[in-house]
């Protein structure tokens, strides 16, 4: 029994982890159709903000929940104004430009902080005991935060004027513009928010993963696979993609090993996109956010 609970908790964390690294990309790529190859580096910048500021004596919670999203959000707004703004609708050019941006960010962080930066933080909350198994309290906390974050994004999109205008702009920018919306401003805000959410995710993961300038590369592929498999609905898509792929990966990792877990995730994504080329929400939950 305790084994079942412990395994279920790990599966839930695997799914939450996938959702956390993908949700910012869902806003930038899923909603805005901007292929952001620097997504992994946005996560890295969130993590670095936490490591550097906590080393300087800043409280961990302040660093994770305020500084990481703030710093990466500002970087996102700057990137949108300087780079992305000129490339809307030019997918291949955006791909190339954000790839360059990703290299630039790795290079900048490496030249400022060196190839690696020492850390002083450990995950808070200690451990929780499930029978003879112990698990990380922080991982349970991350599951909760991921759900709260999804709920918050849903509430913003569903109930605020900004959410309505943003969704309208993404659906039909010309019509939104004709109705008096400054679409350029909406694009900037949406991109900035997507970056801020990514920064928060990177900050949240910092106490429990290795933070290095090049670590973004380990997240980028999985984030894109999750968002593409999920389809066009931001939240329902990310949730469905994470549950399906994270679940399959988790189960196969338990049954066989980590290598086949990764293989199973990729095979599942290929089969899924063969059957549903527009992702899960291209067929199911089509009206959802």
């Amino acid at each position: 029994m305790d084994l079942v609970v412990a395994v279920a908790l790990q599966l839930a964390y695997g799914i939450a982890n996938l959702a956390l690294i993908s949700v910012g990309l869902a806003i930038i790529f899923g909603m805005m159709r901007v292929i952001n190859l620097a997504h992994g580096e946005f996560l890295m910048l969130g993590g670095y903000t936490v490591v550097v500021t906590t080393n300087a004596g800043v409280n961990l919670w302040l660093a994770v929940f305020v500084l990481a999203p703030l710093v990466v959000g500002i970087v996102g707004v700057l990137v949108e104004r300087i780079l992305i703004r000129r490339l809307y609708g030019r997918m291949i050019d955006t791909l190339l430009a954000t790839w360059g941006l990703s290299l630039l960010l790795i290079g900048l962080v490496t030249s400022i902080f060196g190839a690696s930066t020492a850390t002083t933080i450990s995950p808070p909350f200690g451990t929780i005991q499930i029978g003879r198994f112990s698990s990380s309290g922080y991982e349970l906390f991350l599951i909760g935060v991921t759900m709260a974050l999804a709920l918050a994004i849903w509430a913003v999109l569903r109930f605020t004027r900004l959410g309505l205008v943003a969704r309208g702009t993404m659906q039909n920018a010309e019509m939104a513009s004709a109705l008096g919306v400054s679409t350029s401003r909406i694009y900037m805000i949406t991109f900035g928010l997507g970056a801020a959410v990514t920064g928060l995710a990177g900050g949240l993961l910092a106490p429990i993963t290795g933070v290095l300038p090049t670590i973004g590369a380990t997240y980028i592929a999985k984030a894109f696979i999750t968002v593409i498999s999920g389809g066009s609905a931001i939240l329902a898509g990310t949730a469905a993609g994470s549950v399906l792929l994270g679940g399959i990966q988790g189960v196969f990792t338990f049954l066989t090993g980590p290598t086949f877990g990764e293989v199973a995730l990729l095979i599942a994504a290929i089969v899924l996109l063969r059957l549903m080329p527009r992702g899960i929400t291209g067929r199911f939950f089509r009206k959802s956010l």
Partner: protein
Amino acid sequence: MTISRRTFLAGTAGAVLGMPALMGRAQDATIRIASILDLSGGLDIYGAPMDVTTKLAVEDINAAGGLLGRRVELITYDAQSSIQLYTQYATQAAAGDRVAAVHGGITSASREAIRPTLARFQTLYFYNTQYEGGVCDYNNFCTGSTPAQTVAKVVPYVMNKWGKKVYIVAADYNYGQITAQWMQKFVADNGGETLGVEFFPLDVTNFGPTINKIQQAAPNLVISALVGGAHVSFYRQYAAAGLNASIPIASTTFGVGNEHKLISAAEGNGLIAAYSYFEAVDNPVNRDFLARLDAKMGASRPGLNELAVRSYEGVMLWAEAVKLAGTADRNPVVEALRTGLTYNGPSGAVTVDPKTHHCIQNVYLAELKDQTFDILEAYDAQPPADTQLVCDLVANPDQSTFFFENGLAAAGIK
């Protein structure tokens, strides 16, 4: 007077075109060596400290008057964690720069990419990284430690200290796979039992399922051959689940990328590692070496580990051989190295084993405490016993092979 763009271009073009002639004359006065390391990309956590010490070695040689009355010039190539660039730069160094020796390569994959190229161009090659053992190549000196030197020492020590039941986690490529085989052999040789072995692709950052499996198997200890930045997450999540208190970890890979700085003191305390060098090695050469680097770099000095120090000692071994041979030409230098040449470096005495072109070296066991390794045990002059099983370059010098499968077979593993 104004300088038009045309006159400026003409002037600089003349200067630039004139340069090769000047450089051609300068060449005769210097002995050139090349270093090919990953100074950017995912492997720079290993490459950056190696680059610092390689440069220091060349500075030290030149400060002592150079070699054979000539200055040594170091050409540094950044392979950017890309195997393709390794091949390209090895060719450039051997055929274009005509260097006397190449030092470098970090992963076994990068070594295997450039080793055949350098053998073909007859350009002496030093691989200064700990690795899985088994290279048997007249042209190649592997100065780093191998499993028979480190794993063979750490396994009995931790089994004696913590218990006989072992769980192994390793990186999923040739180094991790082969090292895990050696680990299982040494566990069995010492009367222990391997409860499980798991391999991880290099980009895995979520280790939760494996941490559950380890708890289920309930071993006395975990031995890790995990590699790279993503795998640092294992140690953090393992500690977050509270396991570091009940099931301690031993490793032959943790520390060479300065991983012990990337996790907090509480997460790393108690981990035991085995290498041929730790900063805490207590001898006058090492104290002087660290003091000079501190004076030179201050707070920006990277943490030093086996890879970094062996890079220094590798260049110094080459320099000793050049002095002994009286020339920088390959064949006399190789023969000088094969006399069983010794260099007393920061890690202690490093002696070339003529049979394998590997090194007889000291091995240290150390325990991590507050992000610093404290030495527990020292074993002097350990031979590369694994490679010696399959390689004899004294009897048959005309070889350029990598015997990893044969090594495992000869040791009775496969």
